[in-house]
């Protein structure tokens, strides 16, 4: 084999390697999502499971404030009650209402946010409209539940917590991939 042939063999191998590494960059995306799912680091779209029966701590009251926002989509979004008092460990269901004010069908996804931040560790959500995308027809109104337990492990100096949701529009092509993603989970 002369040098020119030998060189082109090496070049071909390296070009294939380059293409493989380019694909690897994209393969990191599902890999990352899988790791987050397995380790439970980023499970915004999944229901929590209770490892043991929750003990209701009737000696404590926690005020839960409910907040609702929309970002960039013509929806009206509000909780049916703005706040409630619960015992830690108690299973609570609250309702949110969302209305599509536009005359087009819109896909929306709600992203939760908690205050104080440490609430995220102690909040177990068994059901939530944020686990899947919501498709609202023109002028459709929908009431949606959230079922949650605030665990009694919540530090005693926290007496008021806030659960907030923000609806974002899922635009065009992304809606399809988002749908398959949420259906799986």
């Amino acid at each position, binding site marked *: 084999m002369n*040098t020119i042939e*030998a*060189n082109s063999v*090496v*070049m071909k191998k*390296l*070009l294939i*390697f*380059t*293409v493989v*590494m*380019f*694909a*690897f*960059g*994209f393969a*990191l*995306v599902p890999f*990352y*999502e899988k790791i*987050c799912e397995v*380790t439970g*680091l*980023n499970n915004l*779209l999944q229901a929590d499971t209770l490892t043991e029966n929750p003990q209701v701590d009737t000696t404590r009251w926690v005020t839960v404030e409910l907040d609702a926002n929309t*970002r960039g989509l013509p929806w009206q979004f509000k909780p049916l009650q703005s706040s409630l008092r619960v015992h830690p460990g108690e299973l609570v269901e609250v309702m949110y209402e969302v209305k599509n004010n536009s005359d087009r069908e819109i896909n929306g*996804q709600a*992203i939760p946010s908690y205050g104080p931040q440490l609430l995220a560790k102690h909040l177990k959500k068994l059901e939530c409209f944020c686990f899947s995308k919501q498709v609202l027809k023109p002028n459709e109104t929908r009431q949606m539940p959230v079922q949650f337990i605030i665990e009694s492990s919540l530090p005693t100096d926290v007496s008021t917590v806030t659960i907030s949701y*923000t609806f*974002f*529009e*899922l*635009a*065009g*092509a*992304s809606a399809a*991939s*988002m749908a398959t*993603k*949420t259906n799986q989970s």
Partner: protein
Amino acid sequence: MAAVHDHDVAHAHDHHPSGMMRWMMTTNHKDIGTMYLWFSFIMFLTGGVMALTIRAELFQPGLQIVNPEFFNQLTTMHGLIMIFGAIMPAFVGFANWQIPMMIGAPDMAFARMNNWSFWLLPPAALLLLSSFFVPGGAPAGGWTIYPPLSVQMGMGMDMAIFAIHIMGASSIMGSINIITTILNMRAPGMTLMKMPMFVWTWLITAYLLVLVMPVLAGAVTMLLTDRNFGTNFFNAAGGGDPVMFQHIFWFFGHPEVYIMILPAFGIVSEVIPTFARKPLFGYSSMVYATASIAILSCIVWAHHMFTAGMPVTGQLFFMYATMLIAVPTGVKVFNWTATMWRGSMTFETPMLFAIGFIFLFTLGGFSGVICAVVPIDIQVQDTYYVIAHFHYVLVSGALFGIFSGAYYWLPKWTGHMYDETLGKVHFWLTMIFFNLTFFVQHFLGLAGMPRRIPDYALQFADFNMISSIGAFGFGLSQLLFLYVVLKCIRGGAKAPAKTWEGGKTLEWTLPSPAPYHTFETPPVVR
């Protein structure tokens, strides 16, 4: 057709296109190396002007010279230009000039592709720089182009993304060329373990480049589709995750750090033995240390994002893995000092820069180990301590390596000796002003001054003033380097073939200046 014709004639030797066309169409590794080096020097001055504008703004508290939006564009572009425009092309320039001469090859393996990989760079740099003039200005979210900022910015970001694509393609083609040249075109008798260290470090660097550059290309492609085509890789609202960008980016970014320093290790490993007049101490351990650094560099990326949210086991893993890199790096530093031990040392400019490199790079390495400690890193994340750390490894590391190599090989390239006195003056000015600029930034960072902010609290005023004075001194000193190089090209004492008494590698067997075509019949290495 003219191109084809000229090429055919050029093959008959001693006859090549003249004027601009010579440079546009050249496939000669020496011409291309020269163009890489000049390109990187122009980019170095461009990025330097940005740095000086930053330092001028930070000379005293308050907003004086630029508005905050433009300041952010400057910090971002300074980083991108220096990394992709100055440091990396400079080392590719060295590789083009030196690798064929050091392994006894007539040229690079793919001469035509070599021309292309250089000529991709000027358009990419123009694209990147012209982003200053579009609505919204240049990218301003930091050179790491983290989303969500990079998803929200104006079209300047799209231009930067395309520029990164083009520069990445150029780097990958350059690397393929370098790997093939080194693997297939060594002179008979030159086994891998007889290769000069500079060639070894470049072989490993080139492998790192083909490993991680495509990943960066993928990451910026995802940014591009997020920005323009409705995907949601990094958009939390659409089910994506901005932290994922940081992971993918730093999977590229950390090996990139070593891509920028390994060739400097190689240059220093050539210069120190030459001026100590002793063979490199622990050659094989140097090779293995370089390879270990390269492998370890691929598993430490998340130490750049300790504060991004990570389980403590992850933090511990990345902390220990990062600290482990200090071991092979320490091997190299001790080998260089052991090479100097009882050597007959002389202190010409290349040697001064090499010793300056060892001294200051080690300091930067130490502050790196400090930054690797999770609780300290959480404290100093995004402060001037980090700025000081990476300028110690990139300026007094990579750039000092480049200066050392430039002085070392200038006589071989030009056929003239450079002005030794002016070279030494350049070294000492650079050394003093560099430390004036960056040493105080350690203190600023420990005191809590954040990076990428155009204004600061009053208690930081004194150190910032010192740093700015140093920066202007440093910047102006580099014009002296330009003068020394131009003077050396135009004339000077005739350089002998073996310019340096202790030079042992193959390029010193060639006349100075090195003829246009060299080693057409390969030398035999015993």
